[in-house]
């Protein structure tokens, strides 16, 4: 594991930081929300593409810049700071890495350049229940003459409200709970039988429920070998969890800094509230959590680039710690701001709302604590 950024990585981090600060402030999300855009932001997407952010995990041969997970982590952390609504996690992390890892040469050259250029957005459609459970896939893919017929439903697919291409996890064999028998299908939005119910979510980032009724796709739409998608899927999920944890670190860090500023300006009883020791100790504990969680995320990011054998364990560590830290910080942010933090005009609420969505996506703290314990044999 490396905990020091290379020059390139540092440069990318600085770019992402400046971009988030100057063009991607929290006010942008607020504006999208008030305009009822439901998290869809075409202009931002263009800029992200110009900066090359969509291509960070894509080989140069397919139009990407191939800079790896540590670099992607810097982008995620910075977009997390301003709780920006972007398709980066679904499109540039999950979508790009799944196609890159499992796709045929044809599929790669068909889709990866379009992702890198920001021409299309992708969404992984996996969960069918209200809690992350990647093996509990009941959606069926039945072999027919020219390919497969898909039937089933997917819940709370983030970016589902605008994604051009869905990567649908379906079962070609076995039953819910089993890892063998899972397959990946590339399903364009306009495919017959695919209906999308758009959701207004608490974080104003939007999402969608999908239902697949006799959706028929050709052999060419099968991503990787049928029945055996699990290993690739789990690796991609772990990359997504680590990237999301990096985003959550940025969210927690920014909320913490906003709170720290308030502690240093707001007065009660003739004193700065930040001079009250009870608040000082709570702030110091948050800082301790943030620093330790930062280490877990930095380590997990570089573990992916080094292709270490403990990526699953480090991914669960990073996501669980990020959930715990952000949960604490988002609550303390509202509490330490007092009444003003309860008003819609203040950003505290936006951070709190986004936090719970980030916590739930790709598995919450209890999911990853359980997984971490299992990986450690108890």
């Amino acid at each position, binding site marked *: 594991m490396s905990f020091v950024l290379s020059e390139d990585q540092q440069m990318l981090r600085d770019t992402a930081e400046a971009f988030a600060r100057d063009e991607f402030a929290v006010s942008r999300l607020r504006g999208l929300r008030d305009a009822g855009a439901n998290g869809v932001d075409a202009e931002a997407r263009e800029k992200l593409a110009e900066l090359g952010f969509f291509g960070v995990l894509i080989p140069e041969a397919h139009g990407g810049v191939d800079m790896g997970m540590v670099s992607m982590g810097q982008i995620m952390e910075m977009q997390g700071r301003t709780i920006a609504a972007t398709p980066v996690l679904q499109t540039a992390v999950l979508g790009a890495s799944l196609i890159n890892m499992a796709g045929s040469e044809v599929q790669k050259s068909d889709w990866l350049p379009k992702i890198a250029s920001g021409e299309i957005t992708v969404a992984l459609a996996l969960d069918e229940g*209200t809690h992350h459970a990647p093996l509990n896939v009941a959606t069926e893919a039945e072999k027919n003459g020219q390919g497969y017929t898909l039937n089933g439903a997917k819940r709370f697919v983030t970016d589902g409200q605008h994604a051009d291409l869905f990567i649908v996890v379906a079962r070609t064999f076995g039953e819910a709970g089993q890892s063998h028998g899972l397959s990946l299908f590339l399903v364009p939005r306009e495919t017959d039988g695919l209906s999308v119910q758009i*959701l207004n979510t608490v974080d104003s980032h939007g999402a969608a429920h999908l239902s697949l009724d006799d959706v028929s796709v050709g052999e060419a739409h099968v991503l990787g070998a049928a029945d055996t998608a699990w290993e690739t899927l789990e690796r991609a999920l772990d990359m997504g969890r680590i990237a999301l944890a990096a985003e959550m670190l940025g969210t927690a860090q920014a909320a913490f800094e906003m709170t720290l500023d308030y502690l240093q300006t707001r007065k009660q009883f003739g004193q700065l509230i930040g001079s009250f020791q009870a608040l000082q100790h709570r702030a110091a504990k948050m800082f301790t959590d943030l620093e330790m969680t930062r280490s877990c995320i930095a380590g997990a990011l570089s573990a992916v680039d080094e292709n270490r054998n403990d990526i699953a364990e480090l991914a669960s560590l990073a996501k669980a710690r990020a959930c715990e830290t952000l949960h604490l910080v988002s609550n303390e942010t509202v509490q330490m701001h007092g009444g003003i933090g309860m008003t819609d005009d203040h950003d505290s609420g936006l951070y709190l709302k986004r936090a719970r969505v980030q916590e739930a996506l790709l598995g919450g703290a209890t999911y990853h604590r359980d997984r971490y314990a299992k990986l450690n044999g108890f």
Partner: protein
Amino acid sequence: MAFDAPSELESFRTEVRDWLEANCPEAMRTPLKDDEVVWGGSRETFKNPDSKVWLERMGEKGWTAPEWPTEYGGGGLNRAQAKILQQEMKRIKARPPLFSFGLWMFGPALLEFGNEEQKKRFIPDIVKGKTRWCQGYSEPGAGSDLAGLQTKCEDKGDHWLINGQKVWTSYADQADWIFCLVRTDSSVKHEGISFLVFDMATPGVEARPIKLISGSSPFCETFFSDVKVPKDQLVGKLNGGWTIAKRLLQFERSSISAGGFGGTGGSGILTPQEYAKQHVGVDETGRVADGDLRARMTDHMMFAKAFGMTVQRSTEQAKAGQEVGHTASILKYAAAKMNQDKCELIVEALGTEGLGWSGDGFADDAKKATRGWLRSKGNSIEGGTSEVNLNVIAKRVLGLREHQ
């Protein structure tokens, strides 16, 4: 109780039972819907017409304020009789006819601190629900430090002149009158505060609703510019307002501690463990499958049970004439924690179903729960922050000192 022989109480019970039977409309014996709560006042629309009848009849008897003196329109009942009325209403599941800050807060204070003329003038319309009152306490610069309030009140001979701003004024945009803390002497802190009441229709008064993170707007910012208030609307002594304020905060905290919190989200929401069973599932032994979540839910259930038993204990001990201030001091802090933990557990148990805001795709109870969870974050801020509660416990109850 000493005044009533059991027999007398029993005949009173029959009386009450018969009257309720005859006067409580059927519709008022069904569970209260969130949007049919009656707050009274000139803006009340009585979404359910029967609720108007019900309020009028109860107000007429003074049973909206059972223990208040009849001379001001109250029910004039003693503790034992009031308890019977309560029991009988509960028996037929009668809805409370009126929700009112006048009944819960201003009325009791006025009965204690107001002059005869003021009681005669204001109490009857509180009992009948004709006047809706709001509370003008907090200011942008005076939250936890309430006594730091700056709203200026000048003596102009024939009237008071008010200039300043209040915040967190509950339903100020719906209220007819306001009871308000103002500064009548800026050379001292607590001793420079007075307690004033005036009509919200007075020129110069403006109430702007505040939108909360939960999307609801139960509070307002209220602005006063050159508001003229008649001299006889000062309650208690000039610069004697802080005494009344403290008393009122007690009424507020005890009503909050009794569970009257914003943030449960309203009717139709299930318990955390019910949602966990639905959304997380149970193992073959019937345990919620997530042992981690299950343990935290159990901890919360136990906390809630312990809270209920503590309320019961302090009530019984108070009745037995024992000192319960120490025990009571923890209730507001504990109630806030209890409600917030419950809301967090519900949202966690709901999973992505608990992350909806509006529209289709999410169950109505789930969306309510999500809004309720957001609203609950205010529980540890409103009516005295948890930090202030802990300071009070440490200093007043445990006797720990300030830095010297």
